[in-house]
């Protein structure tokens, strides 16, 4: 079982380029499991990514066509590819900074067009590759390389953003919710139209160590503790809710 997914990896590419404790390797596994369960033909899939750690999840690892593009522009490239050959299954895997900050304009417009792209946004709430600077998804108060006193601004709620912009399938799960996340990826792959999954992924190297989560398992434990389903949030007080991360399928 452990090696069963190797058939989806490009020959000659072994291991992952991610730091110890990074959640992106787990997310890579989840995406490939969804593909495996759906028996998808990798030669009909195009994986488009931008720049950053998460962009390396598919590129060059996935053994379909991979298009590793410019910072922020993955969705614009993917739009051109999908419109040119609608028979291809075009999947965008990239990070929160790439898709929602530098690429935020392309994100809302791709959602508005409801173009048939499957977007998996690995959200580690920080700019990991460049050394841990504040992102548009960093929680208020969190310390980063550029907010030593704590982030003064509130983060985007990416799911609400793309839902408001017109996406057809919207879900948020953490890599600590494997079955739900795999299931969401499967649904996104089968959904016709713009689908968006925010996959919460821990970054101990750049985020955890600055925010009192020194060990990788601290971040994993934190996600397990904080990620609850929408219905579980119903009975909570405002204060208790603020502590949690609401996950689930918001639009399907």
């Amino acid at each position, binding site marked *: 079982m452990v090696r069963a997914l190797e058939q989806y990896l*490009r020959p*000659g*590419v072994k291991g992952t380029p991610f730091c110890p404790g990074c959640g992106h390797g787990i997310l890579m596994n989840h995406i490939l499991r969804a593909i495996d369960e759906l028996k998808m033909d*990798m*030669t*009909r899939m*195009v994986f*488009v990514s931008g720049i950053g750690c998460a962009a390396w999840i598919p*590129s*060059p690892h996935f*053994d*379909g*066509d*991979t*298009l*590793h*593009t*410019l910072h922020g*522009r993955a969705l*614009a*490239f*993917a*739009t*051109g*590819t*999908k*419109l*040119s*050959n609608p*028979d*291809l299954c075009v999947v965008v895997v990239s990070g929160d900074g790439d898709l929602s900050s530098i690429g935020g*304009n*392309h994100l809302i*417009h791709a959602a508005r067009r409801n173009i048939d792209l499957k977007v998996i946004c690995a959200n580690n709430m920080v700019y990991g590759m460049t050394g841990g600077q504040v992102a548009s998804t960093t929680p208020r108060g969190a310390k980063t390389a550029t907010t030593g006193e704590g982030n003064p601004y509130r983060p985007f709620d990416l799911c609400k953003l793309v839902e408001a912009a017109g996406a057809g399938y919207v879900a948020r799960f953490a890599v600590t919710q494997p079955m739900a996340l795999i299931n969401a990826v499967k649904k996104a792959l089968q959904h016709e139209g713009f689908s968006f999954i925010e996959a919460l992924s821990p970054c101990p190297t750049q985020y955890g160590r600055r925010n009192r989560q020194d060990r990788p398992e601290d971040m994993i434990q934190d996600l397990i503790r904080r990620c609850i389903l929408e219905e579980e949030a119903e009975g909570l007080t405002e204060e208790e809710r603020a502590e949690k991360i609401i996950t689930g399928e918001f639009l399907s």
Partner: protein
Amino acid sequence: MHYFSGNEAAAEGALSAGCRFYGGYPITPSSELMERMAARLREVGGVFIQMEDEIGSISAVLGASWAGRKAMTATSGPGFSLMQEAIGYAAFTETPCVIVDVQRAGPCTGQATRVGSGDLMQAKWGSHGDYQVIALSPWSVQEMYDFTLRAFNLSERFRVPTFVMAEEAVGHLRENMSVPAEVEVWDRKKKKGAAPFGTEEEDGVPPMPAFGEGERLAVTGSTHDDFGYRKTDDGKVHARLVERINAKILKNRNTIVETESYFLEDSDIGILAYGFTARSSLYAVKSLRKEGMKVGMLRLKTIWPFPVDAIRSAAQRWKKIVVPEMNQGQIAGEVRKACLCDVFPVMQTDGEIIHPEKIIGEMKRLA
């Protein structure tokens, strides 16, 4: 015979070349080209999309190109600036694409509705790092058609971003032009299983498969080996790639570069011109010759790669070269680098075309 504007003619040239994808964003003075493509691509089974900005437009074009379509966009100065990062991507990943830049008077927003020729250096040097592009300079509505078609052929053949450096005056000019019954069309070469980013072939251009053909392509703007694997810490791989993408254009420059000469044989002073200014220049040459002045003219139809050989050869007859252009001497500087003549720029950046009288006055002053 058709009575088209230059922008409309460029759209027709693209369609004749087989362009079947257009991604663009409105900008004066190029928008008519996009509007025509929106209507015409529907008729021929192509894809049109108006994107959210210019870097989105060129990015969609590159995504379309890898999906196997001949693809283009058109813009003007500010949009061309916004596209530069993706132009570097196209050069480094060897992705065919055509951009028609209908130049207006810059810098910045400048004079949006008026003519200029200030984007030529940006065309060559606009993105970071060392790379080559091809840039053509049309002087008529007919050449808007011909050069856009040729731009696609060159871009497909050499896998390089190719620009039609039009100017507002030719974009909005209306003239008679003809569409040939048959045109020469080049397509990117394909070879199953071959390396898409490296070749031992003489021309230095590797074959280019499309997504979905089972080649399991790995395309990246990071340093990559012949099969697209990222090799960012390998200096040899990087140097080899940068050298090849430059060499494949420079060693094929005789195929790419086109110039046109007038009254060269008996001339002892010359005008070097391109684009719309070449029209005023030729008028000036003809009237000066009537007055007995031995003036010759060289017109650059290709700007990049720079026509060094043609300029050197013409300059052997000339003691002085006058270079009129609608910028602050961008090409005059290149001419100085290319030959040992005295070079006299005639610079004009007021949003108007250069009047023949201005060129005639400068020639008489120098004679």
